[in-house]
């Protein structure tokens, strides 16, 4: 992570006074590799963070470097591992259940009018409802254990996955379905060879939104229900004014969430829609 600002400095320095060959090298590299722009984008973010921390904009706002050091300390003393061990359990469990049940129900609603009539109103209401307000109710019923936290994840992730899967199936190209029928494809072939692959971009968009909502769910649970895991790290370090450590915990969960979503995109383009890789 800390390598990035160095790269940016290098880039600025090069464009000012270095011989043209270096500028050209960077330019060709920038044109060929999209990752260059990702690095630049992150570098700009981290440098502005560092500058904002040094001004400082608030006594409770640490610099980027302080945060990285704090992160290193928390990894070294094992508190980060313990926190993630606790946070990831309800998160993974909740997301896996939401993905399986959500895609199943959503696809069923897309394929059958009866399933749509039965289920669509429920999920439309659930999606509109401010779920954060219901999290304390879950605690009231299920206590402060793993069940309550998993339920919080599912409550936030499931409706968006269901509704997107349903829309994905409803917007499948009817011409492709006709094509499958005209070659005497069975209903199962139609679903697995045409409908699901054609729906997969929207299906995955729903999954991405659902997983992002799942992260919100688990953080809400840990901040509102039971101070454990990353939520506890954040609350604890805030209460003792260890702002660098608090920010490190926040930034780490953002990073984990981002990497998870990037990984999901990789799975989509490599398994289901290979043609999107070549663009």
């Amino acid at each position, binding site marked *: 992570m800390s390598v990035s600002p160095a790269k940016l400095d290098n880039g600025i320095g090069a464009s000012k006074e270095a011989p043209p060959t270096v500028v050209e090298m960077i330019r060709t590299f920038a044109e060929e590799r999209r990752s260059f722009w990702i690095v630049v984008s992150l570098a700009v973010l981290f440098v502005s963070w560092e500058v904002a921390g040094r001004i400082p904009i608030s006594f409770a706002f640490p610099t980027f470097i302080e945060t990285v050091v704090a992160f290193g300390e928390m990894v070294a003393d094992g508190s980060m591992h313990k926190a993630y061990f606790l946070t990831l359990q309800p998160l993974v469990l909740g997301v896996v259940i939401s993905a399986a049940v959500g895609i199943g129900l959503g696809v069923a609603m897309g394929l059958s009018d009866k399933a749509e009539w039965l289920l669509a109103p429920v999920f439309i209401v659930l999606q509109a409802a401010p779920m954060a307000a219901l999290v304390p109710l879950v605690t009231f019923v299920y206590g402060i254990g793993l069940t309550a936290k998993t339920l919080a994840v599912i409550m936030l992730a499931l409706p968006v996955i269901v509704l997107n899967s349903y829309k994905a199936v409803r917007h499948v190209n009817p*011409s492709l379905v*006709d094509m*499958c029928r*005209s070659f005497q494809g*069975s209903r199962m*072939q139609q679903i697995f*060879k045409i409908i699901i692959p054609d729906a997969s971009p929207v299906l995955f968009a729903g999954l991405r939104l659902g997983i992002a909502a799942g992260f919100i769910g688990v953080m809400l649970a840990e901040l509102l229900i039971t101070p454990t895991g990353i939520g506890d790290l954040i609350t604890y370090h805030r209460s003792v004014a260890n702002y660098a450590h608090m920010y490190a915990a926040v930034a780490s969960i953002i990073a984990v969430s981002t990497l998870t979503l990037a990984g999901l995109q990789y799975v989509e383009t490599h398994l289901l*829609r*290979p*043609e999107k890789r070549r663009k």
Partner: protein
Amino acid sequence: MANSALARSGSVKSATSNDAVVQVRDICKNYGDVEALRGINLEFERGKLTTLLGPSGCGKTTLLKIIAGLVPATSGEIRVNGRVVTGPGPERAFVFQDFALMPWATVLRNVGFGLELKGVPAAERDRTARRYIEQVGLAGFEQKYPHELSGGMRQRVGIARAFAVNADVLLLDEPFSAVDEQNRRKFQEDLLRLVDLEKKTFIFVTHSIEEAVYVSDRIILLSPRPGRVSQIIDPMIDRSASPDDIRRDAGYLDVVEEIWQGLRQYAE
């Protein structure tokens, strides 16, 4: 090489000149209150290319989809090889106006898809697919995806897919309407070559009079609202001549004119 359309009565392949592979009996189709087709009776001869021609709204695509079994008729029946059909069957293959290619599959998989659905083993399926890919002039593009091809090339994939399942009857729904004019002419010539090579029955839907006269053994003119058969024309074009000579031939131009006279009352 090319079959002379003039020599049709002396066809050796078919036992009688009335060897109808597809029979359309009293087909009516209503969409709610709208009457799309009324009392259609037609026979399509084996080994011939028959065109359904008419202005938009005459139900030509609907009729083709009813023959394909993709759309149910309100009343009447379709017989293919003498048997009444109610849905799609292996003796018919459809070529779609919008190509209907799977964007996530390569040309090779798209062409072999009809065989894949039938459970043909991969090696055999690929062999057949490669043969037809070559026949439609796409050799070398087997591993490309549809978005990497031009409109004309995509429709060649659609045609190869229909050929690959070895159906008796090929149903083509305005296959060249999304292809530009230059490619369209080339396409029509290629289609005639494939008709000659494959000895199959073709039912072709188009709204282009020139295209219909150029490729067809028989043209069925439909009139709109509701769709009915208004005229049946056998162009009798001598296809042994070069394509450019055919397009300048007086007989060809006369037929085009005759059809235009029949259709102009429906033009706005």
